[in-house]
């Protein structure tokens, strides 16, 4: 009996497998009803997507766009796209027909200017580019982070929280029960021992929906932990949403979200043995 493997289902739906690989994949999901259901929906969606046309700018939009951008960054207005195409290769034909001469015709191509914007003022314009005054919310860990010496100040709430440590929830009944949900926010303690901040479901929401990297490890598909998370959360889970430290123990975060991306329930499982470290109601 085969278990559900989304990777195989996706690969089959995308149709990029070799014949041998495809046969093996089909055999793998042969008696998995859920796989069959998913395969149908994946193929349906992909077919619809592939039938969609590719958006493109009109020449006028492109011209206006470049002019606006050029003005904003201190460059001279670029040549309109339509005019650039028109002026690229003018071909005046010169023909000499002489009844008295043996019909000799010469065509002399004259190459016009390809682009008239390359003038000497380009260098001055670039030198006048204003310094950055607005910041794009950059992801922690990308090449523009502080470690590169760039002054990319992260917006509030987007700091990498991998150093945050969550104290285990207080058990309400007998010892050894590590599945008790924590109704109240857990106290977090950072590496230095000082109280840092309270970790709540809102914090998990912020971490996940604001695209902050919780951890840096590759969150490959984990069948065992995912299965346990699904049981704990009483719903379908697919992948860990990220990782955090729970009192020095690495934990994988699994969440159930609404269609709007709001976290309804969350559980944190130990990376090493998938035991429950933290749950929310």
């Amino acid at each position, binding site marked *: 009996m*085969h*278990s*559900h493997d*989304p990777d195989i289902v996706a690969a089959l739906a995308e149709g990029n497998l070799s014949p041998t690989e495809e046969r093996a994949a089909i055999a793998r999901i042969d008696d*998995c009803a*859920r796989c069959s*259901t*998913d395969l*149908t*929906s*994946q193929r*349906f*969606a*992909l077919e*619809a*997507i592939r*039938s*969609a*046309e*590719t958006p*493109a*700018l*009109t020449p*006028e*939009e492109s011209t206006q*766009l*470049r002019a*606006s*951008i050029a003005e904003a*960054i201190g*460059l001279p207005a*670029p040549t309109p796209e339509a005019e650039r195409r028109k002026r690229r290769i003018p071909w005046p034909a010169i023909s000499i027909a002489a009844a008295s001469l043996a019909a000799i015709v010469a065509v002399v191509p004259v190459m016009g200017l390809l*682009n008239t*914007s*390359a003038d000497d003022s*380009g260098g*001055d*314009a*670039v030198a006048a*580019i*204003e310094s950055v005054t607005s910041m*794009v919310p950059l*992801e*922690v860990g*990308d*090449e523009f982070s502080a470690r*590169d010496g760039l002054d990319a100040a992260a917006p509030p709430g987007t700091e990498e929280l991998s150093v945050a440590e969550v104290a285990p929830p207080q058990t309400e009944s007998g010892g050894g029960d590590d599945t008790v949900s924590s109704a109240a926010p857990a106290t977090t303690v950072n590496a230095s021992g000082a109280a840092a901040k309270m970790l709540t479901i809102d914090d998990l929401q912020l971490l996940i*929906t604001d*695209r902050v*990297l919780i951890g840096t490890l*590759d969150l*490959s*598909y984990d*069948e065992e932990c995912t*299965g346990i998370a699904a049981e704990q959360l009483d719903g*379908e889970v*697919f*992948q860990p949403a990220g990782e955090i430290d729970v009192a020095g123990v690495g934990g994988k975060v699994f969440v159930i*979200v609404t269609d709007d*991306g709001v976290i309804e329930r969350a559980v944190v499982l130990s990376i090493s043995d998938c035991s429950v470290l933290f749950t929310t109601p």
Partner: protein
Amino acid sequence: MTDRVDADLALIERYLAGDVDAFNELMRAHEDRVFGICLRMLRDRDMALDAVQETFITVFRKVDRFAGRSAFSTWLYRVAVNTCYDVTRRTRRTQADPLPEGRDPADPSSQDEFLAVEVRPDIQKALDALPQEFKAAVVLADLEGLALQTVGDILGVPVGTVKSRVFRGRRLLAETLGNPTAPFDPQRDEHHA
């Protein structure tokens, strides 16, 4: 892909050295794709154009800091996606807004700039119904055809997360578009060991 990466680096060097033509060439190489991403994320053409403008202004203002450790396009598309997220937050659009009245299905032969080459309304509507992070993953991976690793770099998430978002996004798309598939029943179907 490598040729494009190298070409972009060369253009950036030329641009920073004062070559205005390099600006035009960089725009020409990337503006359509950035526009495609923004239009699919935002649905509204005017909003998409504004987002494209904002994206390129940001990028050209900061390009002197680009170290070249990732592809220029990866950075550019990340800025585009983030810009679209910000626009969405600012405007607080609902995901089920109907198209404006009088707007017919896209006609590729139309000369009207507002109708020229758009995503089919039904697919766009289905995309709009997706959670933002699923929509971004589907747009980048399936509609733009970017590699999963590249999508992960753009979105700042691991490849596994990209796979998950794409998979779930497609599933939701199928449901919205009317795929007559029975929903997953945990009582009936298999579980993990």
